[in-house]
């Protein structure tokens, strides 16, 4: 069990390092000048050169990378080119917002996907299955920003039951916090539930045709017992392993959703960083998003492993 966690953790570190390198290169290769963005389009060549020298942008790329990485490891992510605020503390402030949003969205996605997927699998190739498949296709085709707009239009502007945007920390006002986060979480969660639903359905269909399900039925177990006791956990194990990978997709939507709902999260910072070519901000926030995705991945993966006795209980005496 502990070995399991340790091996996953050991794989975590090199992954983060590799991602940081890819991120750094991408940001620097993309055309556009940080200096121009910071100083304005009519900045003189001299001013630009001075800015680049001050920020160390005239150094070779590998030196810049190692410098950034070294400082980053000590928690120093530099200061913004734009507002000259330290990036690190800014991130620490914004991270809980994004984490809460992603967790809520993932929960919503699973609450939709698992029961509906199970229902579809149980009624495989019958009417309920077809109806659910159509629903899944529609959900999967809807872009989350569109769903977000529709939700705001209906729930915030027409019916006026929920605020359209903004943020309040959970610790200060839990109710307000939830009322502000429910729409963004729905727009992300509902859309990603489509894919999870299909995975759940496929996995359960697979499990339901296996020998141990026949064994359970031969014992005289009723269908609901067969599903609950014998099939669901087996299906969940493979579902989560695949689902963990798909979690990254869900996160891709965070950037836009945070912007739409005016949530001061990390995603918003990514967007600001891109628009302003604010390298320190962009690099640090994008890296944070990556770390969160990887950590969530690892967590889901670990839950799947814990559900599976074949991974937790190693083979004992023959």
């Amino acid at each position, binding site marked *: 069990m502990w070995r399991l966690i340790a091996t996953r953790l050991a794989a975590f570190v090199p992954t983060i390092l590799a991602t940081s390198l890819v991120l750094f290169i991408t940001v620097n290769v993309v055309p556009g000048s940080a200096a121009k963005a910071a100083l304005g389009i009519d900045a003189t060549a001299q001013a630009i050169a001075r800015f680049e020298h001050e920020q160390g942008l005239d150094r070779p790329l590998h030196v810049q990378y190692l410098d950034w990485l070294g400082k980053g490891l000590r928690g120093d992510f530099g200061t913004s080119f734009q507002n000259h605020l330290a990036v690190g503390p800014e991130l620490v402030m914004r991270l809980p917002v994004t984490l809460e949003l992603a967790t809520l969205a993932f929960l919503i996605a699973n609450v939709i996907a698992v029961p509906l997927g199970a229902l579809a699998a149980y009624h495989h190739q019958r009417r309920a299955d077809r109806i659910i498949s159509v629903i899944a296709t529609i959900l999967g085709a809807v872009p989350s920003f569109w769903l977000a707009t529709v939700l705001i239009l209906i729930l915030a502007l027409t019916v006026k039951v929920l605020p359209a945007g903004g943020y309040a920390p959970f610790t200060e006002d839990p109710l307000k916090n939830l009322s502000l986060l429910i729409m963004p979480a729905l727009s992300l969660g509902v859309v990603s539930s489509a894919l999870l639903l299909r995975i759940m359905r496929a996995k359960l269909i697979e499990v339901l045709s296996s*020998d*141990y399900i026949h*064994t359970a039925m031969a014992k*005289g177990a009723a269908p609901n*017992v067969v599903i609950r006791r014998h099939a669901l956990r087996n299906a969940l194990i493979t579902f989560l392993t695949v689902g963990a990978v798909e979690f990254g997709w869900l996160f891709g939507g965070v950037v836009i959703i945070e912007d739409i709902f005016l949530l001061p999260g990390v995603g918003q910072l990514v967007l600001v960083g891109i628009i302003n070519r604010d390298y320190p901000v962009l690099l640090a926030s994008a890296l944070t998003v990556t770390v969160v995705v990887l950590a969530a991945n690892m967590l889901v993966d670990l839950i799947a492993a814990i559900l599976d006795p074949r991974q937790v*209980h190693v*083979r*004992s005496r023959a």
Partner: protein
Amino acid sequence: MTALSVLGLLPRTATITTGDIRLSGTSLLGLSRAQLRAIRGQHIAMIPQNPMSALNPVLRVGVQVGEPYVLHRQATWRAALQQAIRRLADVHLPFPDERAREYPHQFSGGMQQRSMTAMAIALEPPLLVADEPTTALDVTIQAQILRLLREIRDEHHTSILFITHDLAVVAEMCDWVYVMYAGRILEQGSVERIFARPGHPYTQALLRATPTTETAQAELLSIPGSIPSPVDLPRGCRFVDRCQYRFDHCNEEPPLLAVETDHTARCWLLETVHG
């Protein structure tokens, strides 16, 4: 398929078109799903071909062996686990109370099949359906499982419907034999009579193709041809394509004809012999 149909577990797409399935005089075909469920596990239980895949990988062995008590006797899980441990001891699993807490992947193939047997005899059903229960096991383990099944038959007074293609196992295990081919019973009779005087050309060929200590050195005989596909069965006798004795009459399906007392075979040759 035979075993699955006896348990009423055929896939939705399959239906039983002719014949009947009777257990101690009651037809199983007319029963509702709930009535069938009451019979499964209580009156009929199954010992599978591949114990590894027949055990649920995420449930402890004790839970799986004890489950019939929960399903049919409304036992608590605690009581069911106690019963499971008793049954695991019945099938001579060493350290049953420790083993009950382990998972199937921690067991060897023989131990897995012992557990499946413990599960099957949990509620002492009058009928066990053993579907090639030893094909997935090593030879030495096979012998142990066969010994166990004989012991269960004698001690628990259980009938065993034993499905196998291994004639040595038939000779060792069975009292009454049905020889099946392409979905038909071709011959039936007591094990002694069938081995002493096989009435059907298929049975005769099978016996010739089985190595014995005398013939072990010689080349193994096999029956030429292959089993007809179920969607393209021959007209008349099912064995007609591969039978060396076939004659005009064989394009009509023969009934079961007497070979001797309590021994019949589905072959026209017997009609010629007797009348």
